[in-house]
């Protein structure tokens, strides 16, 4: 059974159509890139999967069920904006996650924080932007979830931090789970993806495996993306 499924999923913001009858299914064990230019509907799709938005039409299912507190227990979500609590120390953030999520693996999180030299006594307020991004990702990847939804995990960080983040994703995700990474920085994530979904103006322009793209077209996903989205402008 797919871990994430959309049927005729549509989301309008007033007169603006953000997602237009999306049909999609994502199987466990895959790392999927949700790729598209700004405003193509990536964040809307991820928010719908988390139940933070309600569909205008159609449905989205997590493990066969509509998003609800029960599905949130099996979905680990990295929001596009940092959602740490300013006054908390790293240790208090860990306590907070441990209280909320039964699948949180505290030891793994502590190990990663120690590797990065982030003291447990440091407050979020004292952390640099890069450290906050890493802290947030560590919390999200330390859960043993069935679906990871990572909204722009590498936006706005330096190349070394980017490497660390991608490394953390590959070495920590549960292999029976699916990982969805939304980004427009394709060249950076391409090597870690199984499949890609191109979103364009609320529609799926392509859903394919990375190997298939390289085999049949002899080009990288990054090159194909540039080609596809260039055509649309003409």
């Amino acid at each position, binding site marked *: 059974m797919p871990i994430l499924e959309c049927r005729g999923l549509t989301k309008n913001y007033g007169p603006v159509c953000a997602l237009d009858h999306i049909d999609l299914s994502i199987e466990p*064990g*895959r*790392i999927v890139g949700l790729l598209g230019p700004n405003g193509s509907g990536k964040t809307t799709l991820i928010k719908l999967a988390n139940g933070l938005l309600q569909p205008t039409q159609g449905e989205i299912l997590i493990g066969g069920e509509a998003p609800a507190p029960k599905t949130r227990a099996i979905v680990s979500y990295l929001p596009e904006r940092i959602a740490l609590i300013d006054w908390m120390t790293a240790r208090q953030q860990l306590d907070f996650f441990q209280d909320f999520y039964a699948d949180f693996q505290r030891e793994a999180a502590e190990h990663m924080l120690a590797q990065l030299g982030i003291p447990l006594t440091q407050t979020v307020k004292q952390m640099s932007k890069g450290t906050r991004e890493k802290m947030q990702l560590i919390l999200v990847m330390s859960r043993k979830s069935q679906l990871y939804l990572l909204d722009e995990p590498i936006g706005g960080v330096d190349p070394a931090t980017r*490497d660390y983040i*991608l*490394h953390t994703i*590959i*070495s920590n995700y549960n*292999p029976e789970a699916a990982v969805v990474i939304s980004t427009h920085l394709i060249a950076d994530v391409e*090597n*870690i*993806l*199984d499949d890609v979904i191109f979103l364009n103006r609320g529609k799926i322009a392509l859903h394919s495996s*990375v*190997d298939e793209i*390289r*085999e049949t077209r*002899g*080009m*990288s996903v*990054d*090159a194909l993306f540039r080609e596809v989205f260039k055509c649309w402008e003409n």
Partner: protein
Amino acid sequence: MAWDFRDDLPIYSQLVDRLKRAVAAGKYPPGGKLPSVRELAADAGINPNTVQRAFGELERDGLIFTQRASGKYVTESAERIDEAKKQLAESEVHHFIISMRALGYERGQALQMLEESREGES
């Protein structure tokens, strides 16, 4: 940290080639243990399923084998490794000849230049 891969070929096939070369060159010795899927994926900066697929291909090829519950190992067969090495060498020679031909050198001239370059060394 991540390895470099070409854009125009699937990553798993490039990984197969790299691992073959590493085995042929003795970087992974006969009977030696290979890194785990996860280690190699993290090291190369690629998807674990890609590593799995490359291992699968090498295993079908008889160059590596799985010891249940303990991991992947390089074959102990020296003949199998020599064979892989020879295949890789043949493909290098083939590419050399083709490149030289593209530059306008006939086989004989190409070989002569190879000979001279060896004399130029050491």
